[in-house]
Each structure stands twice: as structure tokens, then as C-alpha cells.
């Protein structure tokens, strides 16, 4: 009994160590292998800073929009009855299932200035989407869409609508009911969804790579910078940029665990 228990524990921890812990620790080692200064230089070069700002813009635009959508969509899915609800429910998960490269290509067929459905018309108006940060934000919105919905739906279902009904009976309007009753009850679910969506928006590579055109200093996010530095044989630079992303990932992981604890405590 104890022997098999020990065996299982050894297997579990060994698997996690080799596949997860060691590789992640290695980012730190590799980034500083050629000295702290080199890593610092890559990250603070104009190119590095630009990539960092652009990554923050991706998160800063896509996540808030998807949060508002996510809460509204969850309420529609849980509190409303209508035809085609099951269809809407399945369609929400599409961005989870579709390959990021396919997402990027599909966006080109809508917004591409030559091959797109609305791209040529937009180009005439002087609006370019593909190969600009706007297209990259749209790609990020696409891939990070389901997170908030998926976290809020179970919470809404669990709290039920009795308190909301009570508030309405007492004369609260829809707006008051939402801000005073519903939102406080789902806040940790929303927060958890926001954290997950931010992680995805921060690290998205495939969809953003396809629509970006990889114009250095203009349409290059941190993940794209990592790939470019590696492919141009500036391996140290790649690790330095990767380190910044890994630190952000650790912060996100910390947030995930804090929020999860609060969620269970409520």
C-alpha cells in the first residue's frame, strides 16, 4: 500500500519535474547565461520596448471588451430562454477549438486589402487592418473570447435568480439589480475569467503572427519578438524576451491562485 503510494507520488512528481518545472526554471538560467547586461539590453532596446507596449495594448483592448461581452453573454445564456440557445452556447467555444493559424487566415479573408470581403472597401476609406496592430487586436479578441463567458456561466447558474427577482419586486430597475446584486455575486468568476483571458492575450502567437506581417518595431509583440530573435540567431535576446513573458506568466499564475482561493471562500 505505502509502496504503491510512494511509486505513484514519485511518478507524478517526476513527470511534472521533467516536463514542467525544469523547463520553466531554465528560462531564468538561459536568460542570464550571457550576463544580466545582455538580457537587459535586448529587453530595453527600442524594439524590445515597442514589443512590450504592443503586447500590453493587445491585453488592454481585447480583455476589457471581451469581459463586457462575456458577462452579457453569460447572462443571456443562463437567464434567458430563446430558440437557438444551444447553438449560441456551442459557438462560444469555437475559438478554443480552432487552430490559431486558421483564425489568422480567416481574418485575412475578411479584412485583407486584396482578398478580403470588406478589406478592399476599408482600404478605399484609408483603413488598413491586416498587417497593422488593429488586425492583431482583432485576432487577440477572437482567441480570448470564451474565457469570461465560461467562468461566469457556472457561477450565475449556481447563485440562482431569487435575489435578482426579490430586488426587482422591491422596485429596483434592471441596471440597479445588475450592479447591486448580480455583479457582486459573480465578481470572482469574472476576475478569474479576466486573468485567463489576459494570459491568452499576452501569449498569443499563431493568430497574431499571421495577421501581423511581422513588421519589426510596428507589429511585433513580445511572443513574435522571441521567435524572431531565435530565428535570427540572437538566442540570448530570445531568452531575454522570453524571461519577461515568463515573469508575466508567473504573475498571472499567482493571480489565478489568489482568485481561486477567494472564489472558494465566498
Amino acid at each position, binding site marked *: 500500500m505505502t509502496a504503491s503510494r510512494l511509486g*505513484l507520488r514519485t511518478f507524478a512528481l517526476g513527470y511534472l519535474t521533467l516536463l514542467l518545472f525544469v*523547463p520553466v526554471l531554465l528560462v531564468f538560467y538561459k536568460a542570464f547565461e550571457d550576463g544580466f547586461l545582455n538580457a537587459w539590453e535586448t529587453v530595453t532596446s527600442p524594439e524590445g520596448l515597442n514589443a512590450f507596449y504592443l503586447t500590453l495594448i493587445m491585453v488592454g483592448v481585447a480583455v476589457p471588451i471581451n469581459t463586457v461581452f462575456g458577462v452579457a453573454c453569460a447572462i443571456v445564456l443562463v437567464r434567458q430562454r430563446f430558440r437557438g440557445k444551444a447553438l449560441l452556447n456551442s459557438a462560444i467555444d469555437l475559438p478554443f477549438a480552432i487552430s*490559431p493559424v486558421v483564425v489568422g487566415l480567416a481574418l485575412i479573408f475578411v479584412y485583407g486589402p486584396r482578398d478580403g470581403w470588406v478589406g478592399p472597401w476599408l482600404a478605399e476609406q484609408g483603413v488598413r487592418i491586416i498587417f497593422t496592430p488593429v488586425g492583431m487586436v482583432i485576432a487577440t479578441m477572437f482567441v480570448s473570447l470564451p474565457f469570461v463567458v465560461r467562468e461566469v456561466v457556472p457561477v450565475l447558474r449556481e447563485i440562482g435568480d431569487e435575489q435578482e427577482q426579490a430586488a426587482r419586486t422591491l422596485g429596483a430597475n*434592471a441596471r440597479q439589480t445588475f450592479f447591486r446584486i448580480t455583479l457582486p455575486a459573480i465578481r470572482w468568476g469574472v476576475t478569474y475569467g479576466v486573468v485567463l483571458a489576459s494570459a491568452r492575450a499576452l501569449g*498569443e502567437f*499563431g493568430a497574431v503572427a499571421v495577421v501581423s506581417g511581422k513588421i519589426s518595431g510596428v507589429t511585433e509583440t513580445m511572443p513574435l519578438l522571441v521567435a524572431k530573435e531565435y530565428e535570427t540567431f540572437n538566442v540570448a535576446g530570445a*531568452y531575454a524576451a522570453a524571461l519577461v513573458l515568463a515573469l508575466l506568466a508567473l504573475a498571472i499564475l499567482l493571480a489565478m491562485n489568489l482568485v481561486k482561493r477567494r472564489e472558494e471562500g465566498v
Partner: protein
Amino acid sequence: MTAAPVAEAAPRRGAFPRLGGQLVTRGLVVSYLSVLVLLPIAALLVTSLEDGLGRFWDAVTIPQAVAALRFTLLVSLVVAAINAIAGTIIAWVLVRDEFRGKKVVNSLIDLPFALPTIVAGLVLLALYGDNGVLGISGVSFTKIGVALALLFVTLPFVIRAVQPTLMEIDREMEEAAASLGARPLTIFTRIVLPNLAPAIIAGATLAFARAVGEFGSLILISGNIPFETEVASVFIFSLIESGGINSAAAVSVVLLTISVAILFLFHLVSRWSVRHDR
């Protein structure tokens, strides 16, 4: 509990949800989803068939495309199976075992969800690559390298699906079986496993879906060798970069169809597991 509200104080205005507001919200939600997600998918489907079904078929059946699609499905299946087993064991250890640092280990499980995939690919290459820290050669630019990257990015799915189910399982059944003389292995296969099966399958299905579409972690470690380590997503990417955008669309539609089929399967499995719980 406070006293019940006095009836006369309550104006009835707004007591019933107004249908207008609901309709507006629903309309906005559906519009956003349609413009952001459904429109691009429709554009992809239509464009892929623009040059006729013959061209579509040709693009999808060239040997390189077939090889990439076949390898994608095969490696994803293997990876999902390995992580189904390893994930179940890890979940069991995290729920039933007690050891120092368990909380820390548990909180690190989600790391592959938080870490950008390109970073994952980079560090796996640094560890297992030809000039890697471990000094193993023959991993980078091989099928094993691809599998390794996919194992990393799909690690949390089964663990996070099985953990809550395992926590809720009634220990009394197992204790009863043990008191009747069943050995641990018998208890596991006859009592624990059947209860966990829906969760394991649901987690493995999500892992499979993720593996089929994965791109970021593979671009560096796979080496993109046609007929060897080239997966479908990387193949599509190289088609886009080399200007073969219509062929890329055709292969994308095949990959999209596979993804949607897996998603459908997942919804079936989760519905089954809800019924199973009751």
C-alpha cells in the same frame, strides 16, 4: 434575516423583466459573436471553395498535406492518451496523497495555461534540444520533440478535469470494497475508475483539440520537416508565407472541420457526464 418588506412600500414598476432590454442584450451578444467569429469562418469556407471543388480537393490531397494532417491526428491522439494516464495519476496524488509542498505543486499545474506557447517551445528546445542542457541529441526536429511540446501545453486539461470529481467521490464505497477484501488495484479499476471515466474523457478530448490546433510551441522545436515533423498548423503557416493562400484555406477547412467535430464530441461527453453524476 431581517423582517419581510412591507407590501405597500413596493412599487410594482419593473417587477417583471422588461423584454425590450433582454432583446437588446441578446442582439448585441449575437452580433458581436457573429462579426468577430462567425464572419471570418464563413469567409474562410467560401474562399476555400472559390476556385471550385476540384482545386480544393487537389490542395487537400497533395502528399505533403495528407502527411501533415495524418501526423497531426496521430501525435495528438498519442499525446492525449499519455496525458490522460499521467494526468489521472497526478490528480490522484494531488487529491489523495499528503506530502510537503503539495500546495505549491498544485498551484504550478496551470503554468502551461499561463506561459506563452512560444516560450514553452523555446525552453523545451533548450532542455531537450541538440545543444540542450541535458545533452540529449535526437529530440529537436523529431517527432518526439513535437510530442514533448504537445505534452507540455496539454498537461493541465486532464488533471483539472479529474481533480474536482475525485474530491467529490464518496470514500465509503472504496472502504466497503476494501473491507470485503478487494485489493487496491481492484478497487481502483472497479470503483474509482468508472466514476472518473467521464472526467478523464472530457479532459482528454480538450487536450486532443488543443494538440490538433497547436502552433506556437511547435514552430521552433519541430523543425518543420515535410513528411517528418510538419504538423497541419505549421504547414498552413508556411503555405501562407509562401503565397499559397488558397491551398492554405483548403487545408484550414479540413483542420477546422476536425476541430468542430472534436468540439461536438466534447459537448456530447460533458452532457453524458452530467447525466452520469445524477
